[in-house]
């Protein structure tokens, strides 16, 4: 039973990616696999899962109580970081990254290591694009916006459909589940589901694989520990992926 405790860190800088997304850098580097996450303890508020967006940062989208509290964090303030947690991506060979919104955060760690050939990034509108010019040295970055205010007018799945997947050895995906569901059907059409890796989000209470709140149907695999990254062919078998997830109490919510 190895320790999984909250390590205190001090915020060293805050970068405003978009009006709703901020990258918080701290004074401690964690040894991570790309796609691993941490449980971020916001003292007095809550503890929530966040992907590492680099070895010493998280990138937070304002959603509710904990993320709003995080949003107000300034240099010098302290957080607890429990991690790295989960399996992370296993990028091999040429990598295609497919991100929706803040889902770019964990994919950025592959890009920072110079291993992403092509990065497809979808956002609602130009002002909502995170990590602009901060994605590391990818071969190519293609952006889509729902309203067409920047890049391709449409969804990131459109960009994906145009892409010759045979050129890539690994496809790594992270974003809202309905977007990932769309990605799954595209890669399936192109018979690439086995080399596509999806980073899932489920309600996480412990993050370390003991409480069971993040388990997927019908394998019972824990997103926090057996995941968060699962292969497309695994997800195709799941009655849950793209259909529902469970809330804090364990009740199902359908997307």
């Amino acid at each position: 039973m190895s320790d999984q405790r909250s390590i205190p860190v001090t915020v060293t800088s805050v970068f405003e990616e978009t009006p709703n997304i901020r990258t918080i850098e701290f004074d401690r580097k964690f040894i991570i696999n790309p796609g691993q996450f941490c449980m971020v303890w916001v003292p007095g508020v809550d503890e929530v899962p966040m992907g590492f967006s680099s070895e010493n940062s998280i990138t937070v989208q304002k959603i509710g109580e904990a993320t709003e509290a995080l949003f107000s964090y300034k240099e010098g303030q302290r957080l607890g970081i429990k991690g790295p947690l989960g399996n992370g991506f296993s990028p091999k060979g040429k990598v295609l990254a497919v991100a929706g919104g803040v889902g770019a955060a964990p994919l950025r760690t592959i890009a920072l290591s110079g291993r992403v050939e092509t990065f497809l990034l979808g956002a609602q509108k130009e002002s909502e694009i995170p990590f602009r010019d901060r994605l590391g040295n990818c071969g190519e970055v293609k952006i889509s916006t729902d309203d067409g205010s920047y890049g391709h007018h449409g969804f990131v799945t459109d960009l994906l459909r145009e892409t010759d997947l045979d050129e890539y050895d690994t496809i790594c995906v992270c974003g809202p589940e309905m977007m990932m569901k769309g990605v799954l059907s595209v890669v399936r059409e192109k018979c690439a589901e086995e080399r596509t890796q999806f980073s899932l989000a489920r309600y996480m209470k412990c993050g370390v694989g003991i409480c069971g709140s993040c388990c997927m149907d019908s394998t019972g695999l824990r997103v926090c520990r057996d995941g968060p990254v699962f292969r497309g062919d695994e997800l195709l078998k799941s009655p849950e992926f793209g259909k529902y997830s469970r809330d804090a109490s364990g009740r199902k919510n359908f997307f």
Partner: protein
Amino acid sequence: MITLNLKDSVSVGGIDLKNHLILAAGVLGTTGASLNRVLESGAGGVVTKSIGPYPKEGHKGPCVQVLDGAVINAMGLPNPSRDFTEEIAPLKGKPVIASIFGANPEEFAEVASWFMDSAAGFELNVSCPHAEGYGAQIGSDPDLVYECTRAVSKTGKPVWVKLTPNVTSIADCGAAAERAGASALVAINTVRAMRISTDLRKPMLGNGSGGLSGDAIFPIAVKCVWDLYEACDIPIVGCGGVSSADNVIEMMMAGASAVEIGSAVLNGVDIFEKISGELYSGDGVSAEEIVGCAHE
């Protein structure tokens, strides 16, 4: 090491198990799929997440810290309440024990009524140390233990009562449950505990304090099992810090007829398979031979 002989089925407190190793309540027990996974990976039975009369979201995080080889948690009994019936319906016939809680005998009876069909039996959580109005707040008072147990034992289904070590006398609580018709006692739930981050100057759990589990509490659990074995005649299920076959034997020698395993799943969900691999052998002794033998 002593090994046990595993017969076709193990019957403890009215419930038929596949072996002596049971998944403890609240650990990987939120969904039917997860419970099924643990059964498939070698558990002889599983206890569900504790289910109460109303859906609960539980405490704010952090809910769990794993430090210095021990776990502290304050989940706050999150549960989907009645919706949980559909989680375990597909497991009907398997050794699934529904852990239930309530604030009074009526609530216990009501929650129990939902699982009459799907569960092999009940485990009453009168022992969670960090849930206002529930758990240990009932389990510290032998009269309330008696009444809540009575309310469920009336159903005729096997009723295991899970006790808290955070009382002056666990034997008194066990005796009350026995009088009320419990078919087994489970000892122990977590031990009241707290850690504080000296850097952040705040308790490390969202709820402030929580319950200690894992290796650290094994000697406390052994003592509780011992005391109950001396005081009561119904079977005892040992729980707390069990992480090896030798721990299982030790619990049994103290008086346990079976054991529950919780925190040790942190070492891997295959912990049940691993322990069985060491615990059982063709020429092992029968469990009856060693249960309580250290009392002689």
